[in-house]
């Protein structure tokens, strides 16, 4: 945590009062939502910020605390704050139209809820495009008990993809021309290069295959042209976190991007992953990790030398990088690596082997693959590799075999896989799911239409769950994009083959051409949402309302009583 952040957190904590006799603590925090200028080092733009700052606000809470948060809307439009990953009464969840009415301009809304968990989380606006425009911050919750790992200091490393265009304009441009921001398309020169390498026939056939589907192998980042920030600072502004050589430093990575996955590494340091999405995992040491949009990973690094280390986070499509520095003193820098060359999607990411083309599998142009091929690929990955760790010869089981997106470490070392994540201490008793719900992730890139089971949120019926059941969600990704799926209000237990030790998350990223399962203990009554956390996919329709029916009346009643205004 930086000194500035410390001061801010202290200011927020000013109202914190300890009640005697071991009763619950209570803290009051104030947040203003403001129009601000954001300077990325590359450009300055108008955006939204909390507490008049482009440096993300950090809320430091204690498990067991009863928090009261006064959110004052200084914008000329409605706002909201969603507490991402927090377990709370649904009317405190901050989704306008689902959990509450939203916060009108000039109004102060008071959130009030108990903190029943620990770890690294974040918060952001759930209104319009305020989150891409800058409305996000970090949450750190100190556990009641002892942490199962040691560290001497911690830093929040909150990433985002700041774009010179406003979110509304980006959405409009994408609707008008879905490849508006794609400046990595295949060109004549790429074609000539391919022809020289593989022969003209093969190069033509490859172009023909993609062209017949009207898809692009470079369609990895819908929105390019952004400057990534770490804690509000662009690569040139170089956010710096201090350490004393030999210390264990906990880095709380949070990906608050609108659209961008990052591959993070710190050349010269191994990272020991100890927490994912706020829940402790059995430690796994890696050289590199890919963080999906809206995920968090806590890692511990131990820099021994008295020198600077670069935190280097390349976007998955290699169009931009975030850069920060860990250093013993302010003002130091380490070498900044070159970005690696951009990946290309393969036919495996389309859910089909190359040889399958020409059967009219893409007839009509839906991104729908024949069920069989998707299922086969995924079943193969799931059965053969899950639970055996990603270091297996088969590669990462959470990517389609032969995928162009499978991450590789820059130094040839270990990349974190979902398969490596094992819960430190299971949150729930392991049991069979009571039923399965299939959610096909669907879309139409040419219309910039993103849907679930082929239906936009606006045209859809809510998903109805019953309190007390354990639902198994089956994601079948039929699109060519990677989707970070986020369920509000309840945990997403990723099935990576670890059984009772399956990791407990709030975002489950589903790579193209794969099928991924997660289970949810339905233990939170009320209305929630379930959506792709890519801002423009959600807006385009990749979202569902979720209604949990039944449940303890007392819980519903108490949550209703908390609603403040």
């Amino acid at each position, binding site marked *: 945590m930086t000194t500035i952040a410390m001061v801010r957190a202290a200011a927020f904590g000013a109202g914190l009062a300890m009640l005697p006799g071991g009763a619950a603590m209570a803290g009051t925090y104030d947040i203003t939502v403001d129009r601000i200028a954001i300077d990325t080092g590359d450009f300055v733009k108008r955006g939204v910020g909390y507490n008049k700052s482009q440096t993300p606000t950090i809320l430091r809470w204690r498990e067991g605390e009863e928090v009261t948060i006064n959110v004052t809307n200084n914008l000329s439009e409605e706002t909201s704050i969603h507490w991402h990953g927090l377990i709370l009464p649904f009317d405190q969840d901050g989704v306008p139209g689902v959990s509450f009415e939203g916060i009108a301009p000039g109004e102060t809304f008071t959130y009030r809820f108990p903190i029943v968990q620990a770890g690294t989380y974040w918060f952001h606006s759930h209104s319009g495009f305020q989150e891409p425009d800058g409305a996000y911050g970090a949450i750190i919750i100190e556990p009641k008990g002892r942490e199962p790992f040691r560290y001497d200091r911690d830093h929040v490393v909150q990433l985002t993809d700041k774009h010179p265009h406003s979110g509304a304009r980006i*959405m*409009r*441009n994408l*609707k*008008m*021309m879905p490849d*508006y921001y794609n*400046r*990595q*398309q*295949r*060109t*004549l*020169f790429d074609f000539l290069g391919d022809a020289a390498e593989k022969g003209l026939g093969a190069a033509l056939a490859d172009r*023909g295959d993609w*062209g*017949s*589907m*009207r898809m692009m192998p470079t369609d990895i980042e819908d929105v390019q*042209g952004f400057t990534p920030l770490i804690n509000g600072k662009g690569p040139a502004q170089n956010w710096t976190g201090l350490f004393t050589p030999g210390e264990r430093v906990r880095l709380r990575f949070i990906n608050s991007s609108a659209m961008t996955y990052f591959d993070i590494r710190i050349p010269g340091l191994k990272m020991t992953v100890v927490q994912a999405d706020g829940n402790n995992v059995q430690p796994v040491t890696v050289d590199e990790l890919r963080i999906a949009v809206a995920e968090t990973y806590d890692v511990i690094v131990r820099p021994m030398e008295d020198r600077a280390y670069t935190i280097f986070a390349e976007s998955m499509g290699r169009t931009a990088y975030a850069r920060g520095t860990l250093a013993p003193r302010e003002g130091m820098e380490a070498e900044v690596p070159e970005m690696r060359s951009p990946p290309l999607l393969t036919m495996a990411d389309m859910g089909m082997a190359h040889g399958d083309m020409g059967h009219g599998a893409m007839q*009509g*142009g*839906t991104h729908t693959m024949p069920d069989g091929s998707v299922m086969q690929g995924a079943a193969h990955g799931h059965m053969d590799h899950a639970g055996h760790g990603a270091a297996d010869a088969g590669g990462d089981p959470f990517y389609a075999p032969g995928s162009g997106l499978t991450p590789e470490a820059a130094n040839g070392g270990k990349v974190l896989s979902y398969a490596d994540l094992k819960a430190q201490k299971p949150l729930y008793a392991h049991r069979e799911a009571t039923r399965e719900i299939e959610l096909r992730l669907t879309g*139409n890139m*040419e*219309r910039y*239409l993103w849907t679930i089971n082929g239906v*936009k949120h*606006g045209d859809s019926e809510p998903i109805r769950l019953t309190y007390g059941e354990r639902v198994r969600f089956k994601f079948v990704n039929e699109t060519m994009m990677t989707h970070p799926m986020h369920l509000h209000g309840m945990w997403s237990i990723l099935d990576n083959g670890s059984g009772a030790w399956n990791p407990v998350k709030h975002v489950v990223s589903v790579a193209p051409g794969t099928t991924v399962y997660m289970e949810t203990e339905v233990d939170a009554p009320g209305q929630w949402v379930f959506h792709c956390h890519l801002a423009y996919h959600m*807006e385009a329709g990749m979202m569902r309302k979720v209604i949990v029916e039944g449940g303890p009346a007392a819980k519903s009643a108490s949550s209703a009583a908390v609603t403040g205004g």
Partner: protein
Amino acid sequence: MTRTAGFAAVLAVAVASPALAESPFWGVQVEQFEYRAGEGSDLLAWDLDALAGTDALKFVWRSEGEFALDEDAFEAMENQLRLQVPVTDFFDAVVGVRADTPEGPDRLYGVIGLHGLAPQWFEVDADLFVSDRPVARFEVEYEGLITNRIVLTPSIEVDLPLRDDRAIGLGAWGPKVEIGARLGYDLVDRAISPYVGVHYERVFGATRRLARAAGEDDDAVYLVVGTRLMF
């Protein structure tokens, strides 16, 4: 008259449908805005689509025209109001009206068409302009990326009169063909992309005979300089 009433009915149904309840978007795409220099009179020409609507229904104003600088007159002036509804993943069905108001006789047509993206990234418009002197039109455009900012756009447009309309120089089954190639550079995002190119027009068959009889050339070639615009 009946046609206009029909169009109004379609429009009314479309506006009343819940599709417009979702957040609409809009945009303007000027494919061509250019100066054409050739053997005859130099021209100012444009071809634009202004669009507003939703995924389910788009309302498009399409305007195309040529202004002859020497004659100080609109050689061509065509405006269409088009409603687009998706019918497949990559194609929209189009209904609308087209009004031609150049120098000389005016024309009014109903429009039935398809607009979309064919395999291998060809942008296609196929329209039937309905009247007692109907015309079919087929347009194809391709964006060839030399680099990610330098784009070569070849295009072809064929107008096929299905019946004689001698007053405006159209002979049944005598096509008018326009072929273009424009080399552009994306100067500001995709908002401003200046280009240079060539534009070639030629008439065939009965239409060619009408042109000849009127003492006009049956073909014309222009060097063009202009810009694509998008906002």
